[in-house]
């Protein structure tokens, strides 16, 4: 297979155009044809996933050769003027980091569509908003222009709010407002940082690759870095700005929880790596110790708080806090193993947390409760879901052979190979795997094991539509965990320019 560059870059553009276009088309559909809407969304997302897989195959066949310098070499890139007055460009492309996250997003969106199969009310609105959300995320991952990136990033916020408020449960208004306020606050910091980059660069450019070659003033870097890192960090769930996520996750409908945990948060940590650390290396070094402490605090804090949660979704949300803390720990290691571990942890958590959310959602549709004390012995009535839950739980607690372990190993190793503060942090973070085991097993044991509840035999196991996303997610987890060699090599290449810039 050999495609011309313009074709591949068009395919890349299509990844966000397709969801948006499908949303537009769905607006014309009659409201009551929910079956049609579901199948249409699924088809669109399936095509999109196929597109991304095709791009990944092309990428793996001909990975862009990194020059060894500080500039990332992109694959499938295109660069067009969009708003010349402000030098805003439509600059797209992927490297291994963004492509792997694209793949993650594609899988999660596809699985999320299937996980929302049973939505009966306002189906049309749900899927339209979901598609807009997806478009925002795909667009963000391929953008190499800060402004475009920001626009796509913002595109995700409002649909999230609406989806939680319209389709959520519990304290959904509070949660949605909290989520949006905090993320908007993060966006404000990001915007300040982006404009700072634009004006301090001296070339009035939003282009990441051009900016990466600029040596910014040290004093500028020292204030712009925390603004950008924290701005993205809020989205990426950094302690103590993680509090939007537990409420948001637990109030959101299943697909949105999956999306938030799996993809949206990754956008944050991706931004931290790609924008804050890549463009502002000098600001990064002195500030990284602060973020290291926050990361380790998040790892341990999330785990401890998760122990006390009664609601399964809250438990998983706090587990996400812990796992996202590991992402930041990897970033803070500032070496290639750590950064690679961070990206792998993004992927790992991106598959694991949605899998758990997906299962929790499926259990909820049967038992109509998510409270751990109200459930018991579900293994007897729903063996398939239970096996998946156990597997996903094992993945979350970092069992070898699952994605989480491969990532955590890298992160810990990276941190042990870094500064002495990072070593201490890594030591503490390693201990968190004990606490992780405690809360995961507590959840799994209480829900699946024990005497079966009365009437639970009628609950029924997963349907085919529910099995598909679970199998997909779990196989991704297993593949990533069993055979991390190739992807880690690819990621190594992509990380090299960032690392070179950091060491400049």
């Amino acid at each position, binding site marked *: 297979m050999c495609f011309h560059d313009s074709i591949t870059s068009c395919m890349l553009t299509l990844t966000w155009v397709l969801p948006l276009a499908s949303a537009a088309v769905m607006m014309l559909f009659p409201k009551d044809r929910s079956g049609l809407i579901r199948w249409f969304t699924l088809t669109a997302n399936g095509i999109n996933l196929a597109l991304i897989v095709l791009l990944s195959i092309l990428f793996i066949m001909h990975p862009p050769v990194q020059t060894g310098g500080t500039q990332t070499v992109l694959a499938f890139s295109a660069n067009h003027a969009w708003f010349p007055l402000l030098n805003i460009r439509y600059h797209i492309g992927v490297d291994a980091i963004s492509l792997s996250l694209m793949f993650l997003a594609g899988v999660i969106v596809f699985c999320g569509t299937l996980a929302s199969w049973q939505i009966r009310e306002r189906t049309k609105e749900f899927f339209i908003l979901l598609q807009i959300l997806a478009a925002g995320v795909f667009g963000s991952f391929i953008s190499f222009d800060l402004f475009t990136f920001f626009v796509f990033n913002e595109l995700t916020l409002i649909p999230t709010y609406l989806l939680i408020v319209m389709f959520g449960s519990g304290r959904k208004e509070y949660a949605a407002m909290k989520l949006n306020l905090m993320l908007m606050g993060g966006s404000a910091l990001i915007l300040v940082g982006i404009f700072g980059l634009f004006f301090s660069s001296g070339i009035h450019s939003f282009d990441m690759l051009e900016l990466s070659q600029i040596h910014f003033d040290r004093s500028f870097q020292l204030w712009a870095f925390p603004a950008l890192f924290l701005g993205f960090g809020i989205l990426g769930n950094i302690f103590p700005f993680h509090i939007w996520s537990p409420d948001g996750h637990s109030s959101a409908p299943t697909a949105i929880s999956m999306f938030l945990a799996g993809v949206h948060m990754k956008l944050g940590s991706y931004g931290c790596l790609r924008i804050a650390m890549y463009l502002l290396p000098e600001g990064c070094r002195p500030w990284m110790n602060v973020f290291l402490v926050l990361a380790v605090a998040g790892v341990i804090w999330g785990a401890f708080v998760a122990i006390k949660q009664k609601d399964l979704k809250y438990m998983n949300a706090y587990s996400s806090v812990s796992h996202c803390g590991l992402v930041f720990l990897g970033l803070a290691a500032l070496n290639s193993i750590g950064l690679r571990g961070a990206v792998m942890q993004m992927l790992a958590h991106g598959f694991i947390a949605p899998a758990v959310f997906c299962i929790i959602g499926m259990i909820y549709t049967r038992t109509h409760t998510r409270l751990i004390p109200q459930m018991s012995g579900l293994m007897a009535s729903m063996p398939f879901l239970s096996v998946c839950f156990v597997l996903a739980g094992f993945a979350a607690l970092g069992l070898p052979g699952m994605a989480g*372990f491969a990532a955590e190993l890298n992160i810990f190793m990276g941190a042990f190979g870094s500064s002495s503060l990072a070593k201490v942090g890594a030591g503490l973070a390693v201990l968190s795997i004990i606490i992780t085991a405690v809360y995961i097993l507590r959840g799994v044991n209480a829900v699946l094991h024990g005497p079966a509840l009365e009437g639970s035999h009628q609950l029924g196991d997963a349907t085919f539509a529910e099995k598909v996303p679970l199998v997909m997610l779990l196989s991704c987890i297993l593949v990533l965990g069993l*055979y991390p060699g190739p992807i880690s090599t690819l990621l190594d290449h992509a990380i090299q320019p960032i690392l070179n810039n950091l060491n400049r």
Partner: protein
Amino acid sequence: MDSMTTLASYGVLILPLLSFLLTGLWLGRKNWIASACTATFLMGLTFVLAVILALGYRTQILLHPELYPSATSVAWEHSWMTFGPGLAAHIGFYLDPISVMMVVVISFISFLVHFYSIGYMKGDKSAGRFFPLLSFFSFSMLGLVVSTNLIQTFFFWELVGAASYLLIGFWYTKPSAVAASKKAFIVTRFADAFFLMGMLVVGTQSGGFDFLHVNDPAAAVILNRSVGTGMFAFNLLSVSTVLIYLGAWGKSAMFPLHVWLPDAMEGPTPVSSLIHSATMVVAGIYLTARLFPLFAAAEGTLRVVEFTGAFTALFAALIACTQTDLKRILAFSTLSQLGLMMLSLGLGGSSEGGAVQTLAYTASMFHVFTHAFFKSLLFLSAGIVIHAIHSNDIRDAGGMRKSLSWTYAATLIACLAIAGIWPFSGFFSKEEILQSALKGGHYIALAAGLLTSVLTAFYMSRYFILIFHGTKRSHASEHGHDAHEGILMVLPVLILAVPSALIGWLGKDFFLAHILPYTAGASAAGISESHESGSFSWLVPVTSILIMSAIGAGWYFYGRKKWSAGFSEGQEPGWYRVLRNKFYVDEFYGFLVRKVAARFVATPANWTERKIINGAFDETSGVFRRLAIRLCKFQNGQVQVYLSVALLGLYALYWIGRMVH
């Protein structure tokens, strides 16, 4: 290495995995008999391959010390993940005396346990789920013992933990089984965290994870330096080896991380048999043995090993004398035996001479080897007894000699073996341990070992007599359907009885000649020389007499005077209650976890999370909300207020404009 051996080494790992996948994904859900037979067949094949591998190893490597001076080779190795120059994780197959020995033992016992399980699980609704897990357990353990590097070890180490979790909690509707599985996983996980830490320190600081690299004296030299400052100054080598040893500590259930093991018998008996003999608990011993050269280089680490072993051996033996649960007695006896193995590994700690170290190491491995047979035999025969009396309680057993005659014979052999009576297998390995303790001048260890042996003989005779002699107390046999031994269950027991009885005699010389640590100065010549010098021969008669008298005491109290298994209500003396309650360690942990950890860490954390961190957000938004409510007052619909605001605002703007210019 010829292709046959290489092929066998692949097969040894792939067949159990295949069995797991085949029975787990497909057969187990349709037909449990088919899955059981498939799994057993594949495990049998694995054993055959293991034997082929062992023979190949022997002819090609072990007998060619000129080519392989440390008798070590890597059959194959595939890259799993690369971290940096020199730092890489592989999945490989390590060939050295102990790994090959373990492969043979594990596949043999696993095969027999699979076979036995066909009879044992008959009639259980979830039998289809059992065999895949059993195969997975064996696979994980096989992967662990053939690891070529620390990361592979950790990988399979954790899989072993997960498999044991699933198997201990196999009867998931039983709350005690669920709790036991959780406990086993979390306690071992606790230890594993330290193992991971130690492993990462060793790997990143010495520049490699491969055992060939880590066990090289050069690695110890690199690691042997002081890091940190002031109060936090420590020797990197000691700390990292102790951290790794902590992993083994948990997995091999050394005091005070032993609490999971006695509870682990909540799982089906074949699982207990596998856990206690070949798969799970010896992993810790194996890891310590695997890293023996590194540990030996570290100051103090081996002493830690020795003392944890000695203490656990004695501690568990004391408790075992008072338990009334069949499997719990065996569990504590396992603990005690594991303690002996650890003790033996630690004996090289303070001695300069390589010979003692070598002898102790060999003795430990020898004991692992013999213990695997007689312990799994004990558990399997206990399973038969449990099947017969439908109870785990030793007070429900008694007088089973007639109805379970084959089991009676097999158990007798196993009990004699574990007690250490000549010529049964336990005698030889235990004798080696005691001898090396004596030779190395470790009198505390020697005393602990002797006392443990005596206690072992005592509680095993108690165990044996209470089950098989005396009067029948079983309700099952009263109700007419007499206890019987299914051929499927008895056959593996009888097969195991053969090595339990004889393997010590047959294997002793082989072990002394070949199972050696590859530290500097270790040589078969030295060991046989020190062994045959005869200066310690008084130890054999002394221990034998002590053990015989302990057995006699057991017979006297439980056979003749017909003591019951425990005191009746109210007549229990204090010391006995302490022993029966296992020194209240579980209660202490319960207190630690429920009261201290939950109340002083998790609850405050949760409170802080809700009240302070979330509260800060709510408060911030509250400030704005209140501000907005204030501002709302201007928006009261009264045109005059709007006008005033507009006018004043206009002037304010004007004023600001003037200021700016």
